[in-house]
């Protein structure tokens, strides 16, 4: 009997020793792997999570699809990936990247703050997956090989390199009458730089890292009106972590907003001045109309979540109450 008691004591002691406690796997997608910004922030997250009593083992992924598949297959307890990919796990948080929904970082910050609050916790959770944090990954910009492609009408008939797993982008390309050139994260820059596509879209970091200025050449540019806001989202399997932990986690990610946004702003400020294409207010309105039509259509097709679109509309109207949509409230 004494041996049994001793055995139980040893087991209890092993369970409470931090070094031996069961660890959860955190898979992190970062194109630069463990040297990348996202991975490094995740490392800080891991340290913080340990102080909340959760031991995480990190695994870098340079391919996002593999990270998503491993998460789905249960090889990762949590995964950090882009919002576009996260939409397959959580339509609500994934719809934060809805087209044209948040033109500024200030609005994005407000949106992340809103959905990271404890009041919004039930919205962040589905029966299988929960979003345990969101951080900004940069405004998605449109790169064109000819400055005359500066309005919605001019996009018609042009070849647009489009991420083939992004249903929303595919719909928009058809909607504006452009010709879809299927691409993935690894090929879109090559397609644009080698003149196999007239238009590409990505955050400003790609302008530098993937040398999109080569595709822009002497005639093209970057349109200074964001298509969408790219985000990093931390997805977990519902029930793997406690509600207190996931709530703390959302708060932590919100606190990293300025750190991430700084990187994006820095990359935007380093785009050559001559490459920026400033569009008129009238054209902005036309873009807004096109984006809104697209969002509603995608909401009806259950690609975007209607509650999220409503929250985003409210945020836009808080910034500028004179917008027509603030009266019509179609979203």
């Amino acid at each position: 009997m004494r041996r049994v008691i001793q055995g139980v004591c040893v087991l209890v002691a092993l369970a409470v020793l931090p070094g031996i406690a069961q660890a959860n796997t955190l898979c992190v997608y970062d194109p630069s792997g463990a040297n990348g910004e996202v991975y490094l922030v995740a490392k800080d997250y891991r340290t913080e999570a340990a102080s909340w009593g959760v031991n995480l083992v990190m695994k870098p992924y340079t391919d996002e699809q593999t990270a998503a598949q491993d998460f789905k297959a249960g090889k990762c307890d949590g995964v950090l990936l882009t919002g576009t990919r996260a939409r397959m796990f959580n339509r609500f948080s994934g719809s934060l990247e809805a087209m044209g929904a948040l033109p500024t970082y200030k609005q994005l910050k407000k949106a992340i703050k809103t959905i990271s609050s404890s009041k919004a916790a039930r919205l962040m959770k589905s029966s299988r997956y929960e979003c345990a944090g969101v951080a900004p990954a940069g405004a998605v910009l449109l790169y064109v090989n000819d400055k005359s492609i500066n309005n919605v009408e001019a996009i018609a008939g042009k070849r647009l390199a489009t991420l083939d797993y992004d249903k929303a982008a595919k719909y928009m390309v058809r909607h504006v009458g452009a010709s879809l050139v299927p691409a993935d994260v690894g090929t879109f820059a090559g397609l644009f730089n080698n003149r196999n596509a007239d238009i590409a879209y990505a955050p400003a970091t790609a302008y530098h890292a993937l040398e999109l200025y080569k595709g822009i050449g002497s005639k093209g540019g970057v349109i200074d009106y964001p298509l969408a806001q790219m985000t990093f989202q931390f997805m977990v399997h519902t029930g793997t972590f406690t509600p207190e932990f996931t709530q703390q986690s959302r708060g932590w990610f919100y606190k990293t907003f300025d750190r991430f946004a700084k990187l994006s702003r820095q990359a935007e400020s380093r785009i050559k001045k001559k490459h920026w294409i400033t569009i008129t207010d009238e054209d902005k309105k036309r873009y807004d109309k096109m984006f809104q039509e697209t969002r509603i259509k995608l909401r009806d097709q259950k690609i975007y979540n209607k509650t999220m679109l409503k929250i985003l509309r409210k945020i836009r109207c808080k910034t500028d109450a004179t917008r027509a949509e603030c009266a019509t409230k179609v979203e």
Partner: protein
Amino acid sequence: MLSSAMCAELAAYEMELEYVRLMRKGDITGAKDARIRQQRQNTLTAQRYWRAYEHIGQAYGEPGTMCPEMEEGEETLYATGLSAGVQAFLNDRLGGGELGIPLAVMSQVSRGLDCLDSDALWGMPHAIQSALWSGLPGGGPEGRDGPGQLVKAIQVGDRTGQRMSRAIAVQSWSASGDVQAVRQAIRDHRESLETVPSAPDFELLDVFSTTLLQHQSDLLWMEATGHRTPTGGLGTFWDDSVVEEENDDDFLGDLDEEGQE
């Protein structure tokens, strides 16, 4: 400037190991402090590497814009100067981006390295390029075989006794999470050290390559066991299977009946 940056980097490695050790031990506050110290040290390292990179720019023109004319022997200086640009960027990133070293440096360096004869420089230029490309979606310029180039670069390094190429490769594999490749490379390095002596005029770089690999090995050991690679244990791992070697001399065979006194 380059050697002072290397010294600063070695100090940052110590802090990184301390972070891993304390995390493993469950001393979270201590671990956070170690991480902050490491970040500051990375920023200092980045400053020094950046200065070295700037000197290269001042002497030879902005890298990646055109190939400079170089006297005999200057290629080594140019190659190490370019690699300083990469190290500056990576260390700044590790330090939290305090210096704001632009990402564009990576493509400048990648183009600049094309000005050099990789084989004549122990494969180092090709190894650096491959590592840079592996961090990009799509894996670098069209028509260039990054992984193939890397394997060849390591072979050149092994042949010539200046093995920085392998150290660069290991950093790249470690970044992509390929632990098996890292472990195999550390084993291969140990074997190479035993068979090919350091290139006489470039011992500093070869010794530094071992230091870099030692650090990768220490990180793996620390995560798994709480201590770094045992002395003389580079190329071995805590979970290596103990192979029962055949013992030709059976000294225990006839002791069965003797018993204890």
